[in-house]
């Protein structure tokens, strides 16, 4: 049975009654969930109405779609780069995947989970493990949250990152247990220090063998423990099961998703309702996102500051162009978001935290290179198709401008795009 949310912001958006659904609304959906789309696709999608726009965003193109072939090669490229210890190759490969994915929602979610379960190559150093974690977010990032959490707990990069591999029966390491509660599932104030200590005991014996997850019974503490009110000879799986049923977990994740894709929450009731909605869709991430994408709250929400990846990939996708992956990574580092290397276990900044004097200059520099087009280091390429300035503005900024000018050549289009991207008031989604 479909859950009918009581909160007015969670009710489905009815075009015509609640507001319009036109290019600006379609642009907002595409920019927040898929890094954006080129002008012609944006106008095409908008003309088909809200349900079809949602379908274009949330439904995976069929396996026979020819675009998957090149995409799969990029995945292989990342795997190979990881095996030869080439972090920059992995970063470039991922960035190009985001630029050209036939199903960008999955890539957008892999970025979201990379921030949520922030793991950095600078400590992990095992690059194949980092790459496998990236593939995990890609494959399971739109599935059921409990399954994703379970897979992350067994993930080699995570076990290294939060010292699970050194946790033993005699000396349980609490790092993973603490972050599991604080950052990954419940949030501060919903667990006790004893929960952390007992949880750490439950995860003892979760080790790696030849780079893969391995349960070592000799290092597991099989004594009785009490975690979040449940007592027994708990194992790591049991703790994950407790979290999978915990109402606070549903609310914590639902609020985090809403904050990332819609906007900040100041209303306690809305947070509670979101948790119920997440439970109602059986903690299925894709279903939940689809519900919030079609809610009144989404279309009424205030603008969000775009993170560097959203900003840079959004600009390139909005142009309908392709660019040098390594050069985009170069800019992302200067804007403060280096893929595979979040600054801490808490992930990257949010909102205005992204904008400092240094990162603002970096965004300006990126805009400058967009304007240089083919001649710049970004090596921008697009099919030479003329574009209306108003349509380009909509794709790049999300807002319509009333200027019927037609841009005939790619050079003119790149120059106009650089101008749009370089304006700080446009660094929002």
């Amino acid at each position, binding site marked *: 049975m479909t859950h009918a949310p009581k909160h007015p912001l969670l009710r489905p958006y009815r075009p015509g009654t609640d507001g319009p659904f036109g290019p600006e609304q379609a642009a907002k959906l595409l920019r927040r969930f898929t890094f954006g789309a080129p002008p012609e696709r944006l106008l095409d999608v908008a003309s088909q109405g809200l349900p079809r726009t949602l379908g274009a965003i949330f439904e995976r193109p069929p396996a026979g779609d020819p675009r998957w072939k*090149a995409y799969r*090669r990029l995945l292989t490229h990342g795997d190979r780069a990881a095996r030869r210890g080439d972090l920059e190759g992995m970063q470039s490969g991922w960035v190009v995947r985001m630029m050209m994915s036939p199903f960008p929602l999955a890539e957008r979610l892999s970025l979201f989970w990379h921030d949520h379960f922030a793991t950095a190559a600078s400590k992990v150093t095992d690059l194949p493990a980092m790459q496998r974690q990236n593939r995990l977010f890609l494959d399971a990032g739109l599935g059921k949250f409990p399954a994703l959490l379970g897979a992350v707990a067994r993930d080699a990069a995570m076990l290294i990152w939060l010292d699970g591999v050194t946790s033993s029966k005699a000396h349980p390491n609490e790092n993973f247990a603490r972050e599991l509660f604080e950052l990954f599932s419940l949030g501060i104030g919903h667990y006790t220090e004893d929960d952390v200590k007992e949880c750490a005991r439950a995860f003892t014996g979760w080790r790696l063998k030849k780079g893969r997850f391995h349960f070592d019974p000799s290092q597991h503490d099989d004594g009785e423990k009490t975690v979040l009110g449940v007592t027994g000879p708990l194992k790591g799986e049991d703790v994950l099961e407790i979290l999978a049923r915990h109402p606070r977990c549903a609310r914590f994740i639902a609020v985090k998703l809403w904050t990332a894709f819609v906007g900040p929450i100041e209303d306690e009731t809305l947070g509670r309702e979101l948790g119920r909605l997440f439970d109602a869709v059986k903690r299925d991430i894709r279903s939940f996102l689809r519900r919030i994408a079609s809610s009144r709250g989404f279309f009424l929400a205030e603008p969000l500051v775009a993170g560097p990846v959203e900003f840079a990939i959004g600009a390139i996708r909005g142009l309908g162009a*392709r660019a040098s992956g390594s050069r985009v990574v170069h800019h992302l580092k200067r804007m403060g978001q280096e893929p595979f290397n979040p600054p801490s276990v808490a992930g990257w900044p949010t909102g205005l935290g992204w904008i400092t004097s240094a990162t603002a200059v970096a965004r300006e520099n990126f805009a400058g290179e967009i304007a240089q087009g083919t001649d710049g280091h970004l*090596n921008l390429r697009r099919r030479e198709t003329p574009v209306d300035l108003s349509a380009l503005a909509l794709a790049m900024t999300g807002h319509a401008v009333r200027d019927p000018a037609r841009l005939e050549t790619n050079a003119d289009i790149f120059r106009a795009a650089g101008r749009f991207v370089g304006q700080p008031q446009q660094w929002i989604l």
Partner: protein
Amino acid sequence: MPNSKSLLPVALVIVLGGSTFLRAQDALAGIPPDMDAVVTWDRPAESVGSLTKAPWYGPLLQLLALENPSAPQEIGRFLATLSRYNSFLQEKIVLAARGEGNEFRWLAIARDQSKLGLEEAVTRLNDLLNLELDLEDVAAVRGGRVAGAGPGVAVGRSRSHLVLGATKAIVQRALRRLSDASSTVPEAYRRLASTAKGIRLILPDGLFLKELKSNFQTEDADEFLSPILLGDIGHGLAATKSLFAGFELGPQPSVRIEVDRLEAPSAPKTWKLGFRRPPLLDIHLGRDLATLWRQRDQWVPKAAEPALAEFSSTMNIFLGGYDFDDLMSELKPGVAFIATLPDSVKGPERPELLLPSFALVFRTKFAPDLRDRFESAFQTFLAVTNANSTEEAQQPLLISHEKTSVGTLCIARRLSDPVNGRKASEYNFEPTLLQTGDRLIIATRPDLAVEIGRLAIKNVARQDDLRVDGAALARILELDRERLEEQALVERGDDEEGARRFADRIIALAKALRRLRLRSFDEGEHKVLSLSLEPTKP
């Protein structure tokens, strides 16, 4: 010079092109002997047409088009412009420059048989080259007439020559020299006068050569190789009194650089291997490594000394307590680097990137424990390789010995792992050490070590020689085509079609090249560096 052809930078064409420039062979006599750089350019009459017919021209144009789609049109326009002036340019023209403090003086001279007066000659020059030279203060001077022609330009006319220069004074000086029967071509420029066609440059010991020398005296010690490579060149250049360079861009493009005899710390005889079929890469350096190492403080820039000391102490660790300095002193002159196509490209674990097989060959002084020292370093190398291996499925490299007709091979192999059901990898990497005669061979494959061990060594005149075989290069690019395309997808941001085109063009370019050869040798009083490209016959 066989069939020399040349192509001139546009600027030079614009400054000097025109029907008035005929037979300028003697123009060198007008160049004052104190100029810092002199360039001669011979008429490119046939070269424009023949360039477009060169086998490398098409693939190169396509490759440039990948970066800039309008490149072929731009190059086409440039060649058309060049052709337009072709018919007027029939002999050598000369450009010279001198730096004086922050000032820069330049001079261009060409023989002009048109018999036109100064005013008419300039009018014609303006028409031909779309210039706006406007004569002011025309004055009669010894040897002809001279006039200002706009900011920073003066024009002079003798009965036989047209002269352009930065100032009236320098033009006047050139006219005087041209009219002076006793004026001769300075010794430094004599070689320019004696060679035919192409673009030729000579840098006497002046501002430009000093600038060039200082650029080679790198202070950047970040890259370990730069002090060794550039430091050595810088050291060589420091003793240079003049530098001569020749460029030809015909169907067989080549570059030749000559400097006066270098006082390099090496004067060895070198040796050569005789491969029956050409390897992918064949480099022979006639360097005396032992002397170079001993005298390193003379040629390594100061800033790079710590990096070299660190390298030396790291090598001591690798050698398991043996002294790296002692080891270097036991090397005879000459070192070779050989690369061939991969021997093994099949098997259950075909490598992702098909690297060529490599071998490094030294000559040694038969020190009795030399082999032990190298084996010790080899063991350390394997331990580091095993520790850094990110390949989970791979077994560690272990040393084994194998007797062959050329000596005992010391081979590092991955062994099979029957417990976990893994077979030994068929991998193009089985590091091998072989000492045979006075040669010490370090190869990435045992069969390559044996092949080199069997080859006869011939002593040859001292020279450095680098050869690249185009067909072998194309073959390895073909084998790694998939990787090449992936690289284009990611690094260039190409789509699949674009990536395929990129790989096609890179491979076509390699196929168009039969051989690239870079040599360094002594010729009379000069040290010569020669680069030649030999395209495949169409």
